[in-house]
């Protein structure tokens, strides 16, 4: 080839490269308004800092609507997203056959996330030894309490250092028409895990620790009998109605829940008691059945997954990795999105320690950081969503309303699960229960 032709070709190629179409936007599905705004901001930040061609198309759906749309998209293959941010409970729905998300095990191992994410949280998105998602939130469980009410009643946090003491304090409030706490099904989940057990295991067995489960359940029922706690009307705490009717009238003094309970729920729903709430570690179990004396537990939590058939897996991964490791991204998620990160290196950022006036200027980040090493290890299983669903919708209430015993309920749930997964309905690659 003559030199002039060569250079002409080169020039032509250079021009072509300049006109190469930019990659299509990465589609991210989230399930709340706050997350929508967060990722829009993060996409812009990422574009400035890392990848000038990065475009993101973020779609937000209702919290309960998102898994519906996702299932439909995956089943039909139509309009599938690239990245999804959702609750780990929903993740378990997709484990019964071939997992529709990218296996990120090797990528995580090669990234700062391997050492950075709190080890206890990695199990959330791991199934059969492979990790399919990055856990985003720490979700350490604390006791949120009304410091002003405690003060006027002469209760100090030291009086709640163990569950026995907690119950004693609760019983002493009987005549004052106040409840020390309100309860829902999540308490069973949380307290069981605090004791070192769980409702299912990584092999996919339901209620492997039924003795301790029954014991914990009976303990919760005794709380109701002794007026230490009550169950709100609709069976859940996450209701503005509960806050309007009970919390605001000072009938409930504390709540057990993860970091985002206080940050997101209490801050938004209880606007009349600004400055009056605080957080403290959980009371510990002192009996022989419980493992260790953990002063915290875990509950649920969000994570990021990448759809297996996404045409932009690498691009999506780079963004996911960045959003989990970048200091600004982590801080923003906490300050605007009320989600405390599971990525440990980010905790040293001073912006986390900004005093929160709603919680009387308590340094919540310090609390979360202190108790994080005590968090229990969590595992995942395809049964997780099923068990939670049955517990939450039917069985928890029937036990606390004395319509069934914990033992019978456990057998009933096991039977239902066996029924639901019977033969895996003809599935090709099923997981036997």
């Amino acid at each position: 080839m003559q030199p002039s032709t060569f250079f002409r070709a080169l020039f032509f190629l250079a021009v072509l490269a300049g006109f190469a179409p930019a990659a299509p936007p990465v589609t991210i599905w989230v399930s709340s308004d706050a997350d929508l705004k967060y990722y829009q901001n993060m996409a812009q930040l990422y574009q400035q800092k890392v990848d000038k061609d990065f475009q993101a198309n973020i779609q937000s759906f209702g919290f309960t609507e998102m898994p519906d749309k996702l299932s439909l998209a995956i089943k039909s293959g139509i309009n599938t997203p690239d990245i999804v941010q959702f609750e780990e409970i929903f993740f378990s729905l997709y484990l019964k056959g071939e997992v529709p998300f990218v296996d990120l095990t090797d990528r995580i191992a090669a990234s700062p996330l391997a050492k950075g994410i709190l080890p206890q949280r990695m199990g959330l998105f791991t199934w059969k030894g492979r990790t399919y998602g990055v856990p985003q939130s720490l979700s350490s469980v604390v006791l949120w309490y009304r410091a002003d009410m405690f003060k006027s009643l002469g209760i100090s946090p030291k009086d709640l250092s163990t569950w026995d003491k907690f119950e004693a304090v609760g019983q002493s409030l009987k005549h004052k028409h106040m409840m020390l706490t309100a309860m829902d099904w999540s308490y069973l989940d949380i307290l069981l895990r605090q004791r070192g057990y769980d409702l299912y295991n990584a092999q996919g067995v339901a209620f492997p620790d039924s003795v301790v489960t029954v014991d914990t359940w009976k303990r919760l029922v005794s709380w109701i009998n002794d007026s230490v706690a009550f169950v709100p009307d609709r069976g859940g705490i996450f209701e503005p109605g509960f806050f309007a009717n009970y919390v605001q009238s000072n009938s409930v003094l504390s709540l057990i829940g993860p970091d985002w309970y206080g940050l997101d729920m209490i801050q938004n729903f209880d606007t009349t008691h600004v400055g009056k709430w605080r957080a403290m570690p959980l009371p510990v179990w002192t009996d022989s059945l419980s493992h260790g004396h953990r002063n915290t537990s875990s509950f649920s939590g969000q994570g990021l997954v990448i759809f297996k058939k996404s045409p932009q897996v690498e691009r999506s991964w780079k963004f996911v990795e960045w959003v989990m490791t970048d200091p600004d991204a982590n801080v923003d998620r906490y300050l605007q999105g009320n989600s405390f990160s599971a990525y440990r290196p980010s905790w040293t950022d001073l912006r986390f320690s900004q005093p929160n006036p709603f919680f009387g200027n308590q340094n919540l980040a310090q609390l979360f950081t202190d108790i994080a090493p005590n968090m229990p290890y969590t595992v995942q299983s395809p049964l997780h969503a099923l068990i939670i669903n049955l517990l939450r919708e039917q069985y928890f209430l029937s036990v606390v309303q004395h319509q069934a015993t914990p033992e019978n309920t456990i057998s009933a749930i096991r039977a239902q699960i066996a029924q639901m997964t019977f033969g895996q309905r003809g599935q090709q690659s099923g997981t036997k229960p």
Partner: protein
Amino acid sequence: MSPRRRTRPLPFLLLAPFFTALFVFWFIPLLQGFHLSLESDDLYGNTSFVGFLHYRTLVHDARFWHALRNTFAYCALSVLLILPLALGLAHLLRRTYRKSRALIQFCLMLPGLTPPLVMALLYVLIFSGPFGLLNRVFLHPFGLPNVDWIRDPRFVKPSLALLAMWRWTGFITLIFLSGLEGIPGSYYDTARTEGASAGQLFRYITLPLLRPVTAFVAAFLFLDAFTLFEGAYVLLGGSGGVLDAGLLLISYSYITAFTLGNFGSAVAISFSSLPLLMLVLWFILTQGRIRLFSAVKFSAAKRLPA
């Protein structure tokens, strides 16, 4: 020349749009749905053909039968609650001042005009616990204890039926009102001169003449209760409630599809209930002796040739 002998394009032109829409947007998806119910439940990856496995599994599925019983109980309860109430209201409405009628009808229709989301938000006010209106206004003043309308398994179906009642009573009352007004007053006058009591008037004149209307309304309500998902979704979030007391077939289908990811089984559930539904509807419409046209007369008595 009798019109019947010529071939006219008009009937086919008029039928075409409907049947095209029916074929394209109902039958094709219906067949695809049926095919889906014959496939395995793999959410991701390749599915395999399993024939009638899902249908066979349903026979042993206790939850399916429970949902079926619940659904029929709830449908029957709704119909039995709304029909007499609406008829009674229609009677009352006839006796009120003419000028106030329009306003009353509007108020009664109001619930039917609202989207389910409104009912979801209103639920918080009406159904929830001791502070909820239902307890505060209707039970406490009479010294009755609190009823946990949603969490008590005994009251879940009545709650759903109350919701249906609140939604449809207005509309059904209007239908009955027109039905009542369609009965010539002379019938009553003649009967009264022969010494009939009010009860006899009702039993031998009003009821028989309202029979087709009642059947149509009963069929409509039954169908709505059977196929409407919004009510259960609003109250129970699509679940079955405590001890599955509120689990309807439509909810079970939804749970199977979306909560469990078993789309094939979900379609099988819905298809399985169809024969029973058709039977019940046929029964209702037959009882009503509804006349539509000479070829198809919904009557058990006789069939006229086409």
